[in-house]
């Protein structure tokens, strides 16, 4: 990045009434190809205002990045803005008064009216004040199918989970891995969540995750979900990659039949030059229950105690939600924009599917919004063990799961 040029540009903008130029350090964990391209859109937009985007990417998933982000905020050396999955993760930081209140920005920009679904803004709100700027909607409920793998195996590309399960044997016979899975805990847990919604239905999901109904978690309906997950586990047995995008890469190259992964996987297909519908197929809700969860990423602005920087932070907040940036960013990222009032005609098939579901209101809260990080962590621990240990029976895992839900707060 050419800081000199950016600074020069900044001086020009100052004349137009902008606040004095500031260097804003922004931390995030978007480091894969598609993600990095999307972040670059933010940086470009911010640099154009005269401020400078100092990129603080931390590689290795949110798990690696969050400790760093949080210890810096707590240690009194906060960055100027940071990605966090919104929802309950930031609750305590807000209560401790470490994050900047950006209600005035939200009001000035009329976020209440434009942010869709409104639950996104609710997650940013504590005691009626808004503390974060949502930037995208991410939904986990997708399965990505490789056309090449199915062609090689000589079976048609399935259109729902049951067909897919049936086709697994053919894929295996053709030397393909039926299901590509990375081995990180959040992937195991996320894939399970997707199967949960698809097989068990939205109602069951809400009962367990929102109402924390341990009985439902241990019930017969849920047992089916665990059986399905156990079946998926068997299909993923030969997949021994670590990172999610390595798994996606198996699908892209046709070595694996499918991957259960959130919509961010789309960015990888895009970077690889693949076209939805031609090279790959995406099925929301595994083709069974067409819903999408509306978690997503949001940016928080730790307090700095410096008026100039605060003004710049607010400017960045407004910028992140602005229509143009939303379009550019989400097209690259493969996620859905947070505002319903923008034109995404250039979006691809999968994104359009997502937009339709969103418009129809078939939405679901995301895990981050309803479960504490601690409970999510426990579920991740359980799932990563379950997915990787074929001897861990579905019944045992379910019992443990019910226990965790019972203890959840």
């Amino acid at each position, binding site marked *: 990045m050419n800081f000199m040029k950016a600074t020069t540009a900044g001086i020009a903008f100052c004349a137009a009434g902008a606040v004095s130029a500031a260097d804003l350090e922004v931390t995030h964990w978007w480091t894969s190809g598609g993600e990095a391209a999307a972040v670059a859109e933010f940086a470009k937009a911010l640099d154009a205002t005269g401020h400078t985007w100092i990129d603080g990417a931390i590689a290795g998933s949110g798990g690696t990045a969050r400790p760093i982000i949080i210890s810096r905020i707590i240690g009194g050396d906060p960055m100027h803005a940071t990605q966090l999955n919104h929802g309950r993760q930031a609750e305590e930081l807000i209560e401790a008064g470490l994050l900047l209140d950006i209600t005035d920005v939200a009001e000035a920009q009329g976020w209440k009216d434009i942010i869709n679904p409104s639950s996104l803004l609710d997650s940013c709100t504590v005691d009626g004040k808004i503390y974060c700027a949502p930037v995208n909607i991410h939904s986990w409920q997708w399965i990505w199918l490789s056309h090449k793998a199915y062609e090689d195996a000589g079976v048609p590309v399935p259109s729902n989970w049951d067909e897919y399960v049936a086709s697994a044997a053919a894929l295996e016979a053709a030397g393909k891995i039926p299901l590509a899975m990375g081995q990180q805990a959040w992937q195991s847990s996320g894939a399970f969540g997707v199967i949960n919604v698809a097989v068990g239905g939205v109602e069951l999901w809400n009962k367990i995750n929102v109402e924390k109904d341990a009985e439902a978690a241990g019930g017969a309906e849920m047992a089916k979900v665990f059986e399905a997950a156990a079946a998926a586990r068997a299909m993923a047995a030969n997949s021994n990659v670590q990172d999610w995008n390595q798994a996606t890469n198996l699908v892209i190259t046709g070595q694996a039949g499918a991957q259960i992964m959130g919509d961010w996987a789309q960015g990888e297909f895009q970077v690889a030059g693949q076209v939805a519908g031609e090279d790959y197929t995406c099925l929301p809700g595994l083709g069974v229950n067409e819903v999408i969860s509306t978690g997503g990423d949001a940016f928080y602005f730790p307090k700095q105690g410096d008026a100039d920087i605060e003004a710049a932070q607010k400017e960045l907040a407004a910028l992140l939600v602005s229509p143009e940036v939303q379009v550019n960013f989400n097209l690259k990222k493969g996620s859905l924009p947070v505002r319903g009032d923008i034109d995404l005609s250039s979006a691809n098939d999968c994104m359009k599917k997502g937009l339709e579901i969103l418009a129809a209101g078939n939405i679901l809260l995301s895990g981050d919004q309803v479960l504490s990080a601690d409970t999510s962590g426990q579920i991740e*621990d359980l799932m990563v063990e379950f997915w990787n240990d074929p001897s861990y029976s579905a019944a045992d895992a379910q019992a443990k799961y019910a226990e965790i839900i019972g203890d959840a707060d």
Partner: protein
Amino acid sequence: MAVTDSGGTESARTPAKKPNRLFKNLTAKLASVPMILTAIVVFIGCTGWTIYHSFTKSRLLPAPDKWVGLDQYERLWSTRRWLVSIENLAIYGICSLVLSLVIGFTLAALLDRKIRGESVFRTIFLYPFALSFIVTGLVWQWVLNPDFGIQSVVQRWGWESFTFDPLNNADIVIYGILIAGIWQGSGFIMVIMLAGLRGIDEDIWKATRVEGIPVWKTYIVVIIPMMRPVFVTALVLIAAGIIKVYDLVVAQTSGGPGISSEVPAKYVIEKMFQSQNLGQGFAASTMMLVSVLVVLIPWAYLEFGGKRRD
């Protein structure tokens, strides 16, 4: 430079009077302030702080007023991941202690046989110690990769049925980490052992030669008992490293497959920062501390308890 500085007792005082004890060695005490601060504030203070908070329901931020007693510990010991971590640490700890000592001593003894090219061998054995655990983990992950590494090479040589894939086999993954850990650290132990061997009087060798004791027996019966302090030093260094195993696992396996190569340090870090459950992380780290003390206190008692006089 204040060369006339007199170790704290200033010449200005009336000489006939015994000076205040507090000001005796004043310079030495002042110079030790960083050490005293570290010992008290960091090692005692921070540890105490952590132990206290392990009895609270601290989440993302410390919450000293939310006292929950032993809840965190109860949950800790009913968590499979923690139990697996403890088991792994025990296996890793014992194996790496024994293997490091044995390999370190054997290599040192071999190098001490007046061989040619001693410094070349020594450098070869020692250089991995210069590399970080992150690097170590990454390299061994690569060498042990079933598709490209040792397994595939041996298979290409014609041993089709050969399987050596520790990093993807939950039952033996900890040994895969052990191979890397030993690789990194045994050279340093070798150097310490070598230094110890060099410190042994040559007359001992002459004496055993005169008495016709075989070389191997000399090592076991005479040399090793004489090197007790060296073994203690080596033991301390290895043990201090074992409890801290973290980077290696993160780089090599990330705890996988599943949770089969988790270690306590990783559990602590992840509970504290990732799951935002400080109380749980603190409880786990307190248990780590307790296990260290369980090993350390009897040892310290045996080592220093007997000769408290001086």
